[in-house]
């Protein structure tokens, strides 16, 4: 008998604190699979961010330092510059990366920091109770957009992957989802690519993963999962936005 699926080794054997149906768990697993695949568990130093994923260090069997809200790309820059032989990744939510930490992510990307970024877009601030994020969809009601996000008031949802793909320092940029088996396969491949980008010294590897937050969306897990394809993907199209293959990164 052959094992076709099991818990990745670098994922600590414990329960996640995430709410039922929250995709953070799935995304954690995919990242752990990449750590295993590239055998970087023993050389990885990750920078955790502030949000529902702050407990990264409880779930991955790797060294982790906690960053202030939004600053993980700067923390990772410091780690990687001082330890170029280590594998360094950050895992950030959309409040963390696309609001308070925009300067840090854009400049880490622009400097071509050789790090891997997992960006989890769930259109809300999960940890603090579902307030509006820069990624909140137009019309979406949150605890701080009770009438629905209105572009005249709050602007449009921000598309980070498209923005970052423009920067020369980014070696790989993709947006993926984990709401269906087909999307999952692509998400897994993209995360692997973002790992390879760092290992092959091609600059920042960036993957945006569309994620549910059933709790703060006020939906059941199945309904929340459906929202990804119904509402998010049309505005946040999936795909590979940038992929350097050669040494055109100078």
């Amino acid at each position: 008998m052959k094992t076709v699926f099991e818990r990745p080794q670098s994922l600590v054997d414990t329960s996640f604190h995430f709410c039922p149906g929250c995709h953070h768990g799935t995304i954690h697993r995919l990242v752990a699979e990449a750590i295993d695949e590239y055998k970087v568990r023993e050389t990885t130093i990750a920078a955790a961010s502030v949000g529902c994923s702050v407990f990264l260090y409880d779930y991955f069997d790797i060294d982790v330092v906690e960053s202030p809200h939004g600053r993980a790309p700067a923390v990772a820059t410091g780690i990687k510059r001082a330890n170029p032989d280590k594998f360094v990744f950050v895992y950030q939510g959309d409040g963390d990366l696309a609001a308070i930490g925009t300067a840090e992510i854009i400049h880490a990307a622009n400097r071509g920091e050789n790090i891997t970024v997992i960006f989890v877009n769930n259109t809300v601030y999960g940890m603090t109770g579902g307030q509006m994020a820069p990624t909140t969809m137009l019309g979406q009601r949150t605890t701080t957009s009770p009438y629905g996000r209105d572009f005249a008031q709050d602007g449009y949802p921000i598309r980070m992957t498209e923005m970052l793909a423009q920067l020369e320092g980014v070696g790989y940029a993709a947006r993926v989802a984990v709401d269906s088996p087909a999307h999952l396969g692509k998400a897994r491949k993209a995360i692997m690519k973002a790992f390879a980008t760092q290992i092959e010294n091609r600059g920042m590897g960036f993957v945006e993963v569309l994620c549910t937050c059933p709790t703060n969306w006020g939906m059941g897990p199945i309904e929340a999962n459906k929202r990804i394809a119904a509402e998010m993907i049309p505005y946040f199209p999936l795909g590979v936005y940038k992929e350097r293959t050669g040494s055109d990164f100078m």
Partner: protein
Amino acid sequence: MPRLTIHEDRCKACGLCVEFCPKDCLALSDKFNPQGYHPVELVNPDECTGCAICAKMCPDVVFKVEK
């Protein structure tokens, strides 16, 4: 026949595996697990192909699949 190991204690009864199993092999049970959820169970073992779609869709890494 494929072997499905279900780590019931970890299940949060989100239903994603049930929704995506192409063979309708899974259902949420009536019992409670230590977290207070009705954990998933394999109700149609004969139909299971070991495709591992359930395992991949599960956010809580509840399954192990062998075949």
